[in-house]
């Protein structure tokens, strides 16, 4: 419990630090917010006036404290490009991203664990070779390339699935598979190697000597020990998905946090960048925190002694 408390405090500190880092970095990266907001014919005076109106003429540190003050009162601010209130803008983006990211997490474990188990239980068979080779490919292929290829094959050539946009479940399939490909591959390999390692443990021999069936030994005892490293790395998977979402949402025109963040960075829409970056940081740290809690709960030794 103490560990969880400590991790929660660390998480808050991390959010503070990263909020400033994002705040400063986007302002120091150059570019001009007025380019997206004002017509190209706008004069230098008009542009200066606009900056003054939204407070961009003040020193960065002053701007930061103004931002923190507003944040503390629950005011997320408005988009610089279209004045939309961020609280309303964010809700829909977050919902969309959670749908895509959540289904990817489910797919990663729902496909990765059984495939890894099959590979381990049929070690050195053609099935194992097949699963292992495909997972090597899954780790090696960059997701933007996989995205383009899958759009070409499944949308352009075969016409089975839509290439972009939101809608029913059919719109979800391609982005989910692309977003989860590397996670599935890593999960397969980790499950397989953990299963093989645990199969060599003394306790497996004890269970065999007691007459417990191979099936039960694999599915109950060996699997249980093998899931532990997967739980502890589930937090990393969350971070991986959050990062890849920027690319995948943009390619598939998925109106989520990732796509919005990429667009906001390109337009130098500072408040939007700040909000969504912080959301991603919060998500990743929360994912890691939950992985720690999950690991502690799933491991009897930690459960008893903490």
């Amino acid at each position, binding site marked *: 419990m103490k560990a969880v408390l400590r991790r929660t405090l660390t998480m808050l500190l991390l959010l503070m630090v990263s909020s400033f880092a994002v705040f400063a970095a986007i302002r120091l990266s150059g570019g001009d917010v007025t380019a997206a907001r004002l017509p190209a014919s706008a004069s230098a005076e008009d542009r200066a006036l606009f900056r003054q109106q939204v407070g961009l003429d003040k020193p960065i540190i002053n701007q930061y404290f103004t931002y923190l003050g507003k944040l503390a009162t629950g005011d997320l601010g408005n988009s610089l490009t279209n004045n939309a209130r961020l609280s309303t803008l964010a809700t829909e983006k977050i919902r969309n991203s959670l749908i895509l990211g959540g289904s990817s997490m489910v797919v990663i474990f729902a496909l990765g664990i059984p495939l890894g188990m099959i590979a381990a239980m049929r070690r050195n068979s053609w099935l194992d070779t097949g699963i292992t080779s495909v997972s090597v490919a899954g780790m090696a292929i960059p997701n933007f390339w996989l995205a383009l290829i899958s759009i070409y094959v499944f949308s352009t050539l075969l016409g089975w699935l839509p290439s972009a946009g939101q809608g029913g479940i059919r719109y979800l399939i391609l982005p989910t598979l692309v977003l989860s490909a590397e996670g599935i591959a890593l999960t397969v390999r980790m499950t397989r190697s953990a299963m093989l390692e645990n199969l*060599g443990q003394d306790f497996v*021999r004890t*269970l*065999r000597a*007691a*007459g417990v069936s191979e099936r*039960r030994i694999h599915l109950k005892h060996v699997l249980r020990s093998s899931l532990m490293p997967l739980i502890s790395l589930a937090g990393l998977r969350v971070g991986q998905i959050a990062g890849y979402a920027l690319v995948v949402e943009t390619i598939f025109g998925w109106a989520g946090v990732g796509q919005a963040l990429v667009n906001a960075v390109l337009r130098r829409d500072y408040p939007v960048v700040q909000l969504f970056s912080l959301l991603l940081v919060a998500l990743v740290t929360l994912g890691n925190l939950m992985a720690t809690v999950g690991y502690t709960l799933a491991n*009897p030794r930690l459960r008893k002694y903490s």
Partner: protein
Amino acid sequence: MTGVLLGVGDLSVGVHSSGLSYDIVRDVSFDLYQNEILAVVGESGCGKSLTALSILSLQSSPPLRVTSGSIMFGGRDLLKLPPTELRKVRGKEISMIFQDPMTALDPMFTVGTLLTTAVRAHQKVSKARAEEISLAALADAGIEDPRRRFGEYAFQLSGGISQRVMIALALVNSPKVIIADEPTTALDVTVQAQILERLLMLKKDRGMSIILITHNLGVVASVADRVVVMYSGEIVETGSVADVFKSAQHPYTHGLLRAVPRLGSATKPLTAIPGRVPQPVEIPAGCVFAPRCERVTNVCHEVRPALLIRGPSAVRCHNPID
């Protein structure tokens, strides 16, 4: 001692995988009678544990594989049983206790779950009934507070308690034979004595037969009825404990017994056997013990001696001690 319960016949086990092929256990034969404790004794690497594991086909395979021989039990050769039939023998007819109890128990499940899993692997009983049987087995294994241990995990147990849990796991389906592979090696001396006493009680009260694998001659002397002495993958001598300890016929057994320190005989230095055990890949053509033997003659280097039956004993030697 009435009939033969388990017969190991000409068992050879070895490494047989890509490029490698040699036997670690060669032509091992012995019988286990009803209601006896048979000790298999020898130094590390002599193949005693591998022999024990092979009885239930528990050796790590690959690369270890039985090359030839038979293991007769209840009229069937255990080595020829299909996996589903073999599973029904494991734990139900013959069960096994291992050397290191701390790693031999699954750390992710409670003692109770492990025991009830073993019960329900063989008996179609309700959860509650399986729990009763498990608690009774814990009590039989000498555990004082079965209900408490039932809910504990392996890491909460001491070495001695873990080994008693292992014994309970071996007892839970009331097998006829228990194979105990160095059951006391990882434990301290007082706990060793308690575990050995428990094995003796199983023999006396339940009429069980036990194969006790050990390197400890003191253990053999205190609990076993008969003894099989192994050296470098072969049986060199078998006989009743009394006979073998009083008048060992094989020079190796003789040397082993002389190497045991005795209280109150500080005047005589301990005798060691010179040389070392040959590796399984460099087994000599004649007698395996010839390079280290003090009674060696020419024939020993050329002809491998057969196991010579002499009354209730047997010895594999060209020049046995009379």
